């Protein structure tokens, strides 16, 4: 350590610092103000009271939370509508994040074995697709999956629909809600929702797995190969155990991100299977205009995310202790 690294060197600030620098506290204040206060406001307003036909007022009531779990009219009437929406949020997010990580794993592994320049080219492509707005991605899939163009039309024109009908699989598709009497249909369906969400986070999954897989020592796999292990055995016994924790970590991060997915669900999921994110939007900006209830739902969504992150942390540390 040298003098250049000492703390009382507020070099990035324009003014020379006094003896006891104030800028760390200033910086802390700014960050708390910008990044923490909005979350605190959500929490505070979630206890607020909605005035009929008007806005809302500060209060300390649990009515918004009660409404979420058992409905506003409890105990005369019980409704689990909002819990159901949370269930759909969880369900879509879990399936889509697991799907993305599982399919991204072999891809990332193959990518890290390429030359440095080739890796950089792939990363450019992945980052570009990662940053592409959700609205564009939904638009693309919407065109691909809509009934008048895209895949259903392709099925019809190529005779695939007739073939499916002939083999009898068409009825199975209808049972799954993936076909109308005439042709296959993907909108609206759970499959389309999950597919689009999974697509949305797939490049994220690669980027998250990339550091761990690129640090994987290739000599380990080579040693296993020389001792006669097949590629699958190597993958199962050498590669998978060493990336187990990044795998769980990435899945959790993507899951938390997908809990808030909005556009894909509005476009691809049927109204009965809409999620908490949509309910939040409806309450805060949409037709219902009930900011405290929207805030309460946002808090519950955050708590759900925190719960999963907490247990994920437990799981990984337990796995780490065993390893």
């Amino acid at each position, binding site marked *: 350590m040298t003098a250049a690294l000492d703390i009382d060197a507020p070099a990035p600030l324009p003014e020379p610092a006094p003896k006891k620098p104030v800028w760390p506290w200033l910086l802390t204040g700014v960050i708390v103000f910008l990044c923490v206060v909005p979350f605190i406001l959500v929490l505070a307003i979630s206890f607020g009271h909605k005035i009929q036909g008007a806005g809302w007022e500060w209060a300390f009531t649990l009515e918004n939370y009660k409404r979420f779990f058992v409905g506003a009219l409890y105990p005369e009437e019980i409704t689990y509508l909002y819990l159901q929406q949370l269930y759909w949020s969880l369900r879509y997010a879990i399936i889509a994040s697991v799907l993305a990580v599982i399919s991204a794993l072999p891809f990332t592994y193959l990518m890290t074995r390429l030359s440095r320049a080739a890796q950089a080219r792939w990363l450019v492509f992945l980052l570009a697709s990662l940053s592409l707005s959700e609205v564009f991605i939904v638009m693309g899939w919407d065109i691909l999956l809509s009934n008048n163009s895209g895949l259903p039309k392709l099925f019809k024109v190529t005779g695939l629909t007739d073939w499916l009908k002939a083999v009898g699989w068409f009825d199975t598709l209808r049972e799954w809600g993936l076909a109308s009497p005439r042709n296959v249909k993907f909108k609206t369906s759970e499959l389309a929702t999950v597919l689009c969400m999974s697509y949305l986070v797939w490049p994220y999954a690669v980027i998250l797995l990339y550091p761990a897989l690129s640090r994987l020592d290739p000599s380990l796999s080579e040693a296993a190969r020389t001792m006669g292990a097949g590629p699958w055995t190597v993958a199962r016994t050498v590669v998978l155990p060493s990336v187990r924790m990044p795998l769980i970590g990435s899945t959790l991060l993507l899951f938390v991100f997908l809990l808030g997915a909005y556009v894909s669900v509005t476009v691809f999921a049927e109204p009965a299977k809409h999620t908490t994110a949509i309910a939040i939007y409806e309450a805060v900006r949409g037709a219902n205009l009930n900011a405290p209830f929207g805030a309460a739902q946002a808090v519950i*969504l955050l708590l759900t995310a925190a719960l999963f992150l907490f247990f994920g942390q437990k799981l990984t540390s337990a796995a780490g202790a065993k390893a």
Partner: protein
Amino acid sequence: MKWIGPVFMGLAALGLSLPIVVVSAAALNGGRTMFFPPRDPSFGRFVEFFVSESVWTNALWHSVIVAFGSAALAVLLAWPIAYWLWASGSKLSKTVAALGSMPFALPPIVFGVGLGFFWAFLGGLGSLAAGIISHAALFLALPLVTISIGLQSIDRAHLDAAATMGATERVTFRTIILPQTLPYTASGFFFALVLSFNEFIVMFFVSASNYSTVTLQIFNSLRNGYTPTMAVAAITFITVSLLVFSAVARWGDLPRLMGADQSRR
């Protein structure tokens, strides 16, 4: 068995680009309806998006202002935090860095709702400045990470040498630290820029329908069905992303920024 790897990667690339290709091709439609494959191909929609339709040119202008403004602000905020974290490693600096990364790590819809309340109280709801500051807070984590990686890559021997030769902190900062971290600062700036350009949900709550960015405009038009002009927007956005990340890869070390192992080349 050697062919399985490349084939799998090729399929992944195909799947990844499929919706993008479909949208891009639809931009060439001559009429107002989206067809794929395009009918009566023309570049008329490009003129509409960039020149003649004020709805789109205004939206594009707002997107550009917010993206550049928020990325610059995010870098300005991230620099002192990253430097503080690197130079002192104190508990407070770690806490501040973690708090600053929080908006990016949590579901954006929650932060968006919070910011909506936040600006309603401060009276800035629906102003461009509120949009810029909101995005700066949301994407602060990105320059924070890249600048931290840059600071860690500085060879401490250089700093020792400078100190022995009598350089003051300010001189060391100007002649060693700043130049060596410049590519990382630029990368952080561009990451924030591109993500802000494409961000939608936070902007939705903060803009309060007073103005719209391109992504907001597209979302608003979703209900009326797609028009080929929207596809032009998609092409523009993907092109900007590709250019920016190519530049980062060309002048910076993209694999290192993404956390690749340094010992293998």
